[in-house]
């Protein structure tokens, strides 16, 4: 099987423009007869549903939450990138493109990334027009900050709640279309399967989570905007309900899964505190603008801090190891996420960890508080301010930038981060891998699209901070609404999709059979106990560092766990009413397959790149050792009945506009 990415010809800067103007259109009269189903209402889903409805398509949107506004995009904190160059610091479309390709360790597709950079500025214009209250400076213009892996300030933000504000903007656009009757919204509904007929996506089987009813929805195109699969690790920064099931169901129906092992482990999360822990909380990367990361230089000091005998604030400057600044002077605390995470793991593995479990490093704001305090004092005309005054003024500035994050930290840890440094540790945050899509964001199943985190295309092996929001909205507002038309132009004569066809009958029967199996299994172990066990295997063997032996073990352990799941899982309650345990069981069953494929992918990628670090492939200094000669391709996996027997198809990556270099942040 060969995959065609359908990349338009021509110079990179002209590809999208010429593609857009040559793409086929669907007339307004015909759009009224075409159904589009959108799964998920995060940034990608809400924006796509709203935009397609504006254009005149009949849209149905689905979310499992009780309202589209609760999709997990809401929790994104730090910001959204855009090549506006408002700060006049040399930013440009090309530079954003270049940073993203380099940040992704040269494992993403040039044409898609360039387009992302190109439309990024439109996103900010669109959001401001919708009434998204971005942070502004005293002149009333938009403010920016920096994120990891870049040397410009191109991140737009709304305190530490940027995702919330952008999602509420997209939600408002969606609401406008719902009120006009152009979108029919299905809250508390879960997609159970994609229906594929004559090789094309023709609709979905959904389950009403409140009543348990199984529904059929025909569509001429199905857009999966269902997010990532980080919850395969059980503990992650994802919401409890975030799941990979929609993508996995599509995979089982023939859609290729690309680079499943590319997982982003975010360096700044609140460390785990006990076995009962249900999720991990992220502390935005934006904190690394002003926070300095350190551990003690001396192991004895680290131990004294761990046991509570020494307070971090009492350790003098010269006894602290600001290891990111030491190892990567050019980028310092703002190295990309994969680099920062590995460096934290390295220090903790060496015994320098600073909390009771030894799995934490400090993120310290005292220098920033001092710096801001002095500047503020100068501006206020206070000469010779007292120490206390400087701290008071500095804390105010820090609060205005990160107030809600500091509050969040204090609520969870009961420690005041203005007075004592935060303790942080890496945690699973985002999945760069996802469904394979071509330039039009269509999977290899005609009519089936994947947008946002659900696809694989833009972030390579490592995503830069503040780029997920950018990609979700780019796909949903500015890419899919155009490209979907190119496919739908052939569907204007199809007429309504027959939901009583054999394909729908069969898909529904399979869904019902699986639900019955789960609910009647009467085993002894809870769904969560399996999910935790899977998470532990994944974190230990397919987490921040991987090796062939561990991955092979993981594959057989997951297989065994999956068998045990199907023979011994206990799902209480009934299938014909609200039953969150049943919903969870279906998602965990899919994770038990996806996890195995991730391990297989990690095993076959015999190089280290971005978030994928194979212990066998590293430089003498412990940096990732990429192998461009043999691995400059996208691993696309075709389902063949068993996850670890999936067939590998390669999409070779060609780089015409950037030179492949060893990624250095030194």
């Amino acid at each position: 099987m060969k995959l065609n990415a359908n990349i338009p010809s021509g110079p990179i800067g002209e590809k999208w423009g010429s593609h857009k103007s040559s793409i086929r259109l669907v007339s307004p009269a015909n759009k009224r007869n075409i159904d589009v189903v959108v799964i998920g209402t995060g940034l990608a889903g809400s924006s796509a549903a709203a935009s397609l409805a504006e254009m005149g398509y009949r849209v149905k949107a689905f979310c499992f939450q009780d309202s589209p506004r609760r999709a997990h995009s809401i929790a994104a904190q730090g910001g959204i990138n855009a090549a506006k160059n408002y700060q006049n610091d040399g930013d440009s479309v090309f530079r954003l493109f270049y940073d993203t390709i380099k940040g992704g360790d040269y494992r993403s597709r040039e044409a898609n990334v360039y387009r992302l950079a190109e439309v990024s500025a439109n996103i900010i214009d669109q959001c401001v027009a919708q009434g998204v209250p971005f942070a502004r400076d005293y002149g009333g213009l938009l403010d920016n900050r920096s994120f990891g892996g870049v040397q410009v300030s191109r991140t737009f933000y709304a305190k530490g709640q940027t995702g919330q504000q952008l999602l509420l903007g997209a939600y408002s656009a969606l609401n406008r279309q719902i009120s006009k009757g152009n979108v029919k919204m299905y809250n508390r509904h879960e997609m159970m399967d994609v229906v594929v007929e004559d090789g094309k996506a023709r609709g979905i089987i959904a389950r009403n989570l409140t009543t348990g009813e199984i529904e059929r929805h025909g569509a001429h195109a199905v857009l999966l905007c269902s997010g990532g699969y980080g919850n395969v690790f059980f503990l992650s920064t994802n919401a409890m309900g975030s799941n990979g099931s929609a993508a996995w169901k599509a995979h089982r129906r023939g859609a290729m899964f690309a680079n499943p092992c590319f997982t982003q482990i975010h360096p700044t999360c609140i460390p785990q505190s006990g076995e009962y822990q249900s999720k991990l909380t992220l502390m935005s990367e934006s904190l690394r603008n002003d926070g300095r990361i350190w551990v003690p230089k001396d192991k004895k000091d680290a131990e004294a801090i761990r046991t509570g005998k020494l307070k971090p604030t009492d350790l003098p400057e010269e006894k602290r190891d600001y290891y990111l600044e030491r190892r990567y002077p050019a980028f310092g605390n703002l190295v990309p996420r994969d680099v920062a995470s590995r460096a934290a793991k390295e220090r903790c593995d060496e015994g320098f960890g600073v909390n009771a479990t030894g799995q934490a490093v400090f993120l310290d704001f005292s220098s920033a508080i001092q710096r801001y305090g002095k500047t503020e004092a100068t501006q206020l005309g206070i000469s010779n301010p007292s120490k206390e005054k400087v701290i008071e003024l500095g804390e105010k500035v820090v609060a205005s930038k990160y107030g809600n994050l500091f509050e969040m930290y204090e609520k969870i840890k009961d420690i005041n981060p203005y007075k004592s440094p935060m303790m942080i540790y890496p945690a699973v945050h985002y999945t760069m891998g996802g469904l394979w899509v071509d330039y039009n964001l269509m999977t290899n199943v005609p009519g089936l699209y994947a947008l946002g985190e659900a696809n694989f295309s833009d972030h390579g092996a490592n995503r830069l901070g503040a780029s997920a929001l950018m990609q979700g909205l780019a796909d949903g507002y500015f890419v899919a609404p155009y490209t979907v038309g190119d496919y739908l132009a052939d569907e204007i004569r199809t007429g309504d999709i027959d939901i009583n066809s054999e394909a729908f009958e069969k898909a529904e029967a399979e869904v019902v059979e699986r639900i019955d199996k789960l609910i009647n299994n009467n085993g002894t172990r809870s769904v969560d106990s399996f999910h935790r066990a899977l998470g532990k295997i994944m974190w230990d063997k397919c987490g921040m560092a991987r090796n062939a032996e561990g991955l092979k073990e993981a594959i057989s352990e997951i297989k065994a766990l999956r068998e045990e799941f199907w023979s011994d899982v206990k799902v209480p309650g009934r299938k014909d009413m609200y039953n969150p345990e049943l919903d969870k069981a279906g998602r965990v069953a899919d994770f038990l397959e996806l996890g195995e494929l991730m391990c297989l992918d990690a095993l076959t990628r015999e190089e280290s790149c971005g978030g994928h670090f194979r212990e066998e492939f590293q430089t003498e200094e412990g940096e990732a050792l990429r192998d461009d000669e043999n691995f400059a391709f996208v691993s696309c996996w075709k389902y063949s009945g068993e996850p670890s027997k999936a067939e590998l198809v390669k999409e070779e990556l060609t780089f015409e506009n950037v030179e492949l270099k060893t990624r250095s942040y030194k």
Partner: protein
Amino acid sequence: MNLTLKIWRQNGPEDKGRMEIYPVQDINPDMSFLEMMDVLNEQLIAEGKDPIAFDHDCREGICGMCSMFINGEAHGPGRRITTCQLHMRSFNDGDTIVVEPWRAAAFPVIKDLATDRSAFDRIQQAGGYVSVNTSGNTIDANAIPVPKTDADRAFDAATCIGCGACVATCKNSSAMLFVSAKVSQYALLPQGKVEAKERVRKMVNQMDIEGFGNCTNTGACEVECPVGISLENIARMNREYLSASLSSAE
């Protein structure tokens, strides 16, 4: 910690519902309230009993899905937190904790502690938006400067997470704080001003249709709001509504 939980059980919207008592042992004070509920549910599943249904998702205080009325307070004791941010260290060993769903006519119970808050969505659909299509050719984002104080106040109003604590807390089950937050956000920004009058009329009208009560200015909503939405917004909405009502029809 050992605790006694009195939890509302209701097997669907038609069921009458009742309180049931569950003892839990060995609770770690660093657990969040929802993690404690997870422990209880694991225990119930092991005993072959029906676990307690409750809404939750992000578990970091932003999605607005969790919604428990604990010891007579929305999101329990503590200020400016959601239920998922409430930690067991706020309670004492041996405490009895009473847990109920949001109670309001406009929020019918789905099961146990989970309620249907789609009325909030319908209020937003009535007018909680700026009528701008996706185009990519809207004016440059910096074309209209917005005074920082207005932008900041609009942001403060826009941080509402739509959890419904204000309604659950209000003796009249009024949704004024929720509605006024959205009205204020747009009223404060130049982009929202064009449709301001129409918006406030439509949203208030929908709020009434959904069966939310009136505001009698007791201010309990502001106290219990997990993100600190200010009562000021209600004053602003009243002003907007009055001015919209007094101006001639469009």
